[in-house]
Each structure stands twice: as structure tokens, then as C-alpha cells.
């Protein structure tokens, strides 16, 4: 009898700035309906913990924040593994990845599979190195200056010219149109995320935003990808709706980046269309929150990642048909105060099995 797969996934909150965890879980269950899913959570109120649907978890555990470092992470995962022996962990938040990279040998010795991203690749795509990456790969990136203090932020803004974006190293960004706004935005980014702050030129042109989710094979190749134009955006610029595009120029740009980085595993590339074509504004080292959309049209990248981690043959993903689209739909989930009480003790075991949707893979 085959052992039931036990997979831990983080990033469980689907708020107005949704995290990818539930979408990754839903995709995995399309191919592995009986997988046991463990949610790794940083807050009692992460919405995914309350889902009884196919994106829900079998159990959830509170985790130490990433800034506690790799030792705290591995210690907690060891505790979890005593109850639920983990086969793999799929971190879904940018801030978690450095700890996972640092612990790669520890995971190997424990037989726990995690994405095999290297520190070098991870660092090269960070916001402060993105401009250099663009240069090396032959891809347009808006002019970027990294700043550590307010004076430098003002100097960079003058140099780049208004309007421009100020961005936190890992999260957060805001458009600034004047020096006064620079001061305010710089302080809020520093307070929320710490330094440095990245000043990035706003892209002129149509301003249309494009996102690409994909999976790199670690040798410079692309195992699958899906490109969308964002057709609905939240107030903070997140995709609330998107439509598949088939643009050979965009595809070529994506392939150049992945080849240059020899990227292993999931990624999300964010572009804005400028006067001279697509400009890369960010590369995220994980699946995006909309990753279950391509899974529903035959391009199940999270399930492919599981196959890769298990060293199973990975069939190339189906090409997503242009014109297929998604619209996000928020629902109210019912919880109970007893769940909060249980989770505040560190873990939550769901008695009821998630209402698994069997054979969710699209039929050819």
C-alpha cells in the first residue's frame, strides 16, 4: 500500500491581499486527492484554516515568524513531524524562503523535500538586484535605486523623476508623486518591513499589467507557465481577475529570465507594458495566489512541483488557451471560537475530512 503523502503548506490567508497557500493546496488535491495537508500558520485568523473545502487543511500549526531564523523553523517542523511525518514542505511566502534555503541540508537529512532553489538564484531576483538581472538577461527593468535612508530616497526620487514607486525589500509598495509623499512612504515602508527601500521608475505606456506563473527545472528550462493580463485589480494592485494571453514576446522574455537564473521551482513574474514592450517589475520566488486558475485549465504547476520533489516523471504542462479567464470570488467561512482556542495552544486538528473534490484534473 502506498503511503499517504503528507505535505505542509504555508501562506494560508485569503484576505484582500491573498496568500497562495489555499490555491496551492487545491491544486495539489486535484492530482493527489488523498494527500494529507498540514497548514503552517502565523496567525489564529488565517482564513484557510477554516475552510472545509478542498483547499482546507487536515491540521494546522502555529509557526515562529520567519525573523526568528532557521533554527526556530526546523525545531517547530521537527515537533510537527512527530505527529505528522512530513514528506515535503512548500513555503508560499517570500519572507520564509531564506530560512528554507539555509536549512536545505537539514531537510535532506530528515528526508523532507523542499523546493531546491539556490541562494544565488534567490538573491539575483530580489528587488534590489532586479535591474542587474534584467541587464544580464536582456530584459527591460524600470530604473531602480536602492536606498537606506530618507536623504538617499529623496536623491533617488529626483534622479529617477516623478512619479515613481517606493517598495519594501520583500513586501509593500506605493506610488509617489512628490517629495512630501516620498517622506511619508519611506517611513511607512521602513516601519513595516525594514530597509532597504527600493525606488523604481513608474512605467509609461499603456500601463497594462501582466503576470506569469511558471515552474523552472533548475537547468534553465521552463516546465510550464501561464501568462495573464490583469483585468481586475484590488486597491493594492493585486490581480482580482485575469485573462490568459499568448504573446510570443512575453514568453521569450520569461524564458530568458529563467534561463539566466537556472531557476528551480515555482515563480511569478510581474510585468507592466511600457512604450517599448514589457518591463519586469518583480519576480516572486513562489506560486502566486491565482495559481489554481491555470490548474483548472490543465496547467497544474503545484502538482508538477510535487512530482518533481518526489522525483517522478514530470509531463510538460498543457499550454493555457488565450481567452480563458478567472474572477476571484470571496466567500464567508464558518468557524467556531473553539477552533481559535485549540489553535492558540499551537495546533488545530480538523476532525472532518475536507470535502475533497475527486478527480478534479480537467478531462482532456
Amino acid at each position, binding site marked *: 500500500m502506498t503511503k499517504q503523502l503528507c505535505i505542509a503548506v504555508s501562506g494560508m490567508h485569503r484576505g484582500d491581499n491573498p496568500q497562495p497557500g489555499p490555491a496551492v493546496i487545491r491544486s495539489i488535491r486535484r492530482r493527489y486527492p488523498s494527500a494529507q495537508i498540514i497548514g503552517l500558520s502565523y496567525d489564529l485568523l488565517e482564513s484557510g484554516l477554516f475552510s472545509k473545502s478542498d483547499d482546507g487543511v487536515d491540521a494546522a500549526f502555529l509557526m515562529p515568524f520567519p525573523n526568528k531564523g532557521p533554527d526556530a523553523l526546523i525545531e517547530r517542523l521537527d515537533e510537527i513531524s512527530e505527529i505528522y511525518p512530513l514528506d515535503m514542505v512548500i513555503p508560499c511566502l517570500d519572507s520564509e524562503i531564506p530560512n528554507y534555503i539555509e536549512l536545505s541540508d537539514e531537510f535532506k537529512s530528515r528526508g523532507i523535500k523542499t523546493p531546491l532553489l539556490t541562494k544565488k538564484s534567490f538573491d539575483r531576483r530580489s528587488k534590489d538586484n532586479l535591474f542587474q538581472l534584467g541587464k544580464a538577461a536582456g530584459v527591460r527593468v524600470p530604473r531602480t535605486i536602492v536606498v537606506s535612508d530618507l536623504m538617499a530616497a529623496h536623491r533617488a526620487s529626483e534622479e529617477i523623476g516623478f512619479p515613481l514607486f517606493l517598495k519594501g525589500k520583500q513586501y509593500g509598495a506605493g506610488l509617489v508623486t512628490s517629495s512630501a509623499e516620498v517622506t511619508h512612504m519611506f517611513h511607512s515602508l521602513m516601519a513595516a518591513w525594514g530597509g532597504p527601500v527600493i525606488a523604481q521608475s513608474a512605467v509609461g505606456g499603456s500601463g*497594462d499589467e501582466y503576470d506569469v506563473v511558471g515552474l523552472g527545472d533548475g537547468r534553465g528550462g521552463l516546465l510550464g507557465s501561464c501568462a495573464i493580463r490583469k483585468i481586475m485589480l484590488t486597491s493594492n494592485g493585486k490581480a482580482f481577475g485575469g485573462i490568459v494571453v499568448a504573446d510570443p514576446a512575453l514568453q521569450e522574455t520569461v524564458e530568458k529570465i529563467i534561463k539566466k537564473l537556472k531557476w528551480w521551482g515555482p515563480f511569478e513574474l510581474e510585468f507592466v507594458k511600457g512604450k517599448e514592450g514589457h518591463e519586469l517589475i518583480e519576480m516572486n520566488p513562489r506560486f502566486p495566489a491565482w495559481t489554481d486558475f491555470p490548474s483548472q485549465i490543465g496547467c497544474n504547476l503545484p502538482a508538477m512541483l510535487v512530482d518533481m520533489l518526489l522525483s517522478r516523471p514530470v509531463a510538460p504542462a498543457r499550454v493555457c488557451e488565450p481567452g480563458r479567464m478567472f474572477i476571484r470570488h470571496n466567500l464567508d467561512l464558518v468557524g467556531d471560537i473553539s477552533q481559535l482556542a485549540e489553535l492558540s495552544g499551537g495546533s488545530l486538528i480538523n476532525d472532518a475530512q475536507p470535502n475533497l473534490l475527486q478527480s478534479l484534473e480537467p478531462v482532456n
Partner: protein
Amino acid sequence: MSANRIRKEEVNGGNAVHLSNLKIVNGCLAFDVCSGKFHRISESAAFVIGELKRQTPLGALITSYSQCFGISPAIAARDIELFMNDISVVR
């Protein structure tokens, strides 16, 4: 007839639309598979775009257009000319 949603400034934000990338959906929507933009269009605009994609010669297009919509060839020719001007950045 008008392709009023396909304005030059919209399609030409640095990137003109290629006719070959336009897909007419249900006769009322022009979808650019490359840029992901879509535009509501009239039945007559859908007809003309469809014929242009099939590379129908202008003379034949005028004839079929006038027959389809029950108008004289002269009016059809003017209508098509105005439409072509309107979408001149579509190539």
C-alpha cells in the same frame, strides 16, 4: 458602424494590434490574444474584421457587406473605408 472601442490610442500604447491576433468572440467581442485586451464591437464591425482576417479582397468585401446588411455598394464602400481608417493601427 463603428469599432468605437478600438481607438488608436488604446491599441497603440506602444503596441499596435495585429489583425492575426484578433479573435472575434460570439460576433460581439474582439479579443486580442496577444495583449489580452478585448473590445465590444458591433455586428457589422465583426463582419468586416472577420472578412479582413480571411484576407477577402476589398471589392468582394464591399459586395458581401452590402448584401449582408441590405445597403447599396456605395454606402457599403464608404462605411468600410471609415471603419478601416478608424482601425488603421490594426494591422
